[in-house]
């Protein structure tokens, strides 16, 4: 009897829980609260210790550096109001923005900046868990003539030094970053429940003016099935990095915003093996592949076609005239193959890391497209480790579908790998002009000239059909219809500052 009663109470409780679950299905009224779904818990709250991209993505809203990246890929003044660079490019003088407050109320001074940069420089007594920045070993000395001025002297000139100064500035001597992080961003940290949620609140004293949203709760939803459920039940208003399939199954309460994954997806060809050592064969493949059809078939039309090892987020470096350098032309492809001595086509393998379904899907479409010019391609799915060791490091493959990204926001990061002596030149690309252009670009001090050289390198890759370039894959973000202000960055961050509810 007792048991029956207990069961009744339990089932009643469950029923209530169900009802309340349904109740939250109503879209929330335009208000100051926002719930963001994140796919993994944060690995560290200390900005100098976090490793996971997913952590930096959220904490981008809590911490800032002297400069911060803009959605277009430029560097904007942040804690530094302005700066000057000496003619020999060895001395950087920063004027800090006056009266910027940390979340704990203290004023940001040049001493805090020095403390932060020193904490990130590798020295003998740097704690092992600090993720040091190699570029800071180039700093010869740091001077603070007054509280609002910082002078950095470099050992050797560098074009890219400024991009590393996005590193978080934290209060000098503050030891509790791990548990109660303090930065200068538009949102301050409130609390964290491991494996469950992280709560941020807007920082009313933010130098750029307070954000529109008052409270942001980041809910950790690790289960892929849980993502859709949480969106549809109303528990979450925004979720980034959805797969195409997940995006397709969303209800009308949401819209899909399309950003870019910022990687170069291509059918990478091993330029050293037959028949891909023949320029005409590589060009034939470029003519045979219809990029837009790949994007339409395997990615539901989401994606941005590209024509060289550069993607649109790179702004001035990106040359959009190369996108259609090889229009879809079966006839031309067949002629080129015939000239190269393969009138009846040939057989090839496409090595694909099997854990990446998008690449596998792309390969399936490519196989169909290559059939049209008589090329019989076979997909060879391999595990990620095998792909890394055999194909990427061992360079033992014929062709592979993969996405290559840039480790830093510099054209060099994408283009250096195809110089003949580069250790990560996994396609064995070897072209004298290309190497020469790269050397010139490195010794070049003028920004416009350097940009022109990098663009010439891009063109060189396209003209020589180094790879069959396909697309910069889309990064899909689901957002509730009345939430606006989503901004995409060329780096992996989720900017909460501009978000607002429309009534």
């Amino acid at each position, binding site marked *: 009897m007792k048991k029956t009663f207990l069961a009744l109470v339990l089932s009643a409780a469950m029923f209530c829980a169900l009802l309340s679950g349904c109740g939250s299905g109503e879209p929330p009224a335009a208000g100051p609260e926002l719930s963001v779904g994140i796919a993994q818990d944060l690995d560290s709250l200390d900005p100098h210790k976090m490793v996971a991209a997913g952590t930096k993505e959220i904490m981008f809203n809590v911490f800032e550096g002297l400069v911060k990246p803009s959605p277009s890929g430029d560097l904007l003044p942040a804690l530094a109001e302005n700066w000057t660079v000496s003619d020999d490019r060895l001395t950087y003088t920063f004027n800090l923005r006056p009266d910027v407050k940390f979340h704990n109320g203290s004023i940001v001074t040049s001493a805090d900046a020095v403390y932060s940069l020193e904490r990130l420089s590798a020295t003998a007594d740097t704690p092992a868990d600090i993720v040091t920045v190699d570029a800071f070993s180039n700093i010869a000395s740091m001077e603070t003539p007054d509280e609002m001025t910082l002078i950095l002297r470099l050992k050797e000139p560098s074009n890219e030094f400024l991009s590393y100064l996005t590193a978080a500035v934290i209060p000098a001597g503050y030891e509790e970053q791990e548990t109660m992080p303090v930065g200068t961003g538009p949102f301050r940290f409130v609390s964290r429940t491991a494996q469950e949620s992280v709560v941020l609140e807007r920082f009313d004293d933010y130098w750029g003016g307070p954000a529109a949203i008052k409270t942001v709760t980041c809910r950790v939803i690790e289960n892929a099935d849980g993502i859709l459920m949480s969106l549809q039940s109303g528990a979450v208003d925004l979720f980034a990095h959805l797969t195409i399939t997940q995006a397709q199954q969303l209800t009308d309460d949401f819209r899909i915003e399309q950003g870019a994954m910022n990687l170069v997806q291509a059918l990478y060809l091993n330029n050293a093996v037959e028949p891909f050592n023949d320029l005409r064969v590589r060009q034939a493949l470029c003519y045979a592949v219809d990029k837009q059809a790949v994007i339409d078939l395997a990615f539901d039309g989401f994606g941005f076609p590209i024509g060289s090892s550069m993607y649109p987020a790179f702004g001035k470096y990106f040359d959009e005239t190369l996108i259609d350098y090889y229009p879809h032309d079966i006839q031309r492809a067949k002629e080129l193959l015939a000239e190269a001595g393969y009138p009846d086509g040939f057989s090839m393998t496409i090595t694909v890391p099997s854990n990446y379904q998008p690449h596998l899907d792309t390969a399936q479409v490519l196989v169909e497209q290559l059939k049209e010019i008589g090329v019989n391609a076979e997909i*060879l*799915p391999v595990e990620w480790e095998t792909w890394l060791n055999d194909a990427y490091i061992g360079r033992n493959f014929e062709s592979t579908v993969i996405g290559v990204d840039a480790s830093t926001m510099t054209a060099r990061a994408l283009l250096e790998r195809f110089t003949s002596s580069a250790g990560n030149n996994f396609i064995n690309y070897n072209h004298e002009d290309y190497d020469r252009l790269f050397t010139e670009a490195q010794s070049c001090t003028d920004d416009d000239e350097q940009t022109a050289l990098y663009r010439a390198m891009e063109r060189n890759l396209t003209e020589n059909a180094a790879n069959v370039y396909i697309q910069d894959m889309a990064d899909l973000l689901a957002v509730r219809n009345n939430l606006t202000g989503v901004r995409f960055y060329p780096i992996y961050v989720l900017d909460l500052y501009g978000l607002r509810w429309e009534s």
Partner: protein
Amino acid sequence: MRRNYYLFAGLLLTGVLAAFALLGVFWTPYDGAAMGAEKFLPPSPAHLFGTDNFGRDIFSRVMEGAGTSFLIALCTIAIGAGGGILLGAVTGYFGGLADEALIRVGDALTAFPSILLALVVISLLGPGKPVNLVLSLGLVFIPSFARVTRAAYAEAREANYVKSVRLMGASHARVMLVHILPNTMPVLLSALTIGFNNAVLAEASMSYLGIGVTPPDASLGYMLSEAQSVFGRAPWYALSTGGVMISFLFGVGLIGEGLRFREGGPAL
């Protein structure tokens, strides 16, 4: 003898599906790999099972995929049954130390979940080739056949009819092949039908996990794994593929049951 409905229904169902798969080897309504049609079309007279996420005709792919799956299952059973019956017969008939050793090895192998074992074997042989898939699955199926056969032979070894033919001068090989084997048929036939069904499922699991048949080739298991991710948008994909597979397994199961009746074996 009363009419054997089980056998009749099983043969009919399996026959129709086998014919359907066999036809798929020579002819399909569309090229199963061609991405010509619109994506996610629901079933219609033009596309009986609709189209998939690449705009491929699912009906054509099921025909091709069923053929691939059944062929792999047949080869797997051929290896498993061939090796298992041979090993089981020799060890069961002669007994002794070899018998003990082999049975213990078999026990050790069956201690692992069969899929796990097949995964290990296929990672050693190298994934992505149907031959390796068949070999690895075949090896995994050997112990179960060996066990069944050994039990039957060990029992028959002491039977009077075996002792009689031995006295009459028959060789060991002749006794095993001509005299004992026919008597183990009821047991073996049901082991074969159950084994075949398990092999179809094993192939499906392996391909579902992405280490069996390589895309764009179709197999029922691989198609199911594709279908699962688009279930919300194209439920007909999973339902038609799964339906064909279940019908086939049901048909073979009925045959097994029917054969047991006919041979006078115990009904399950």
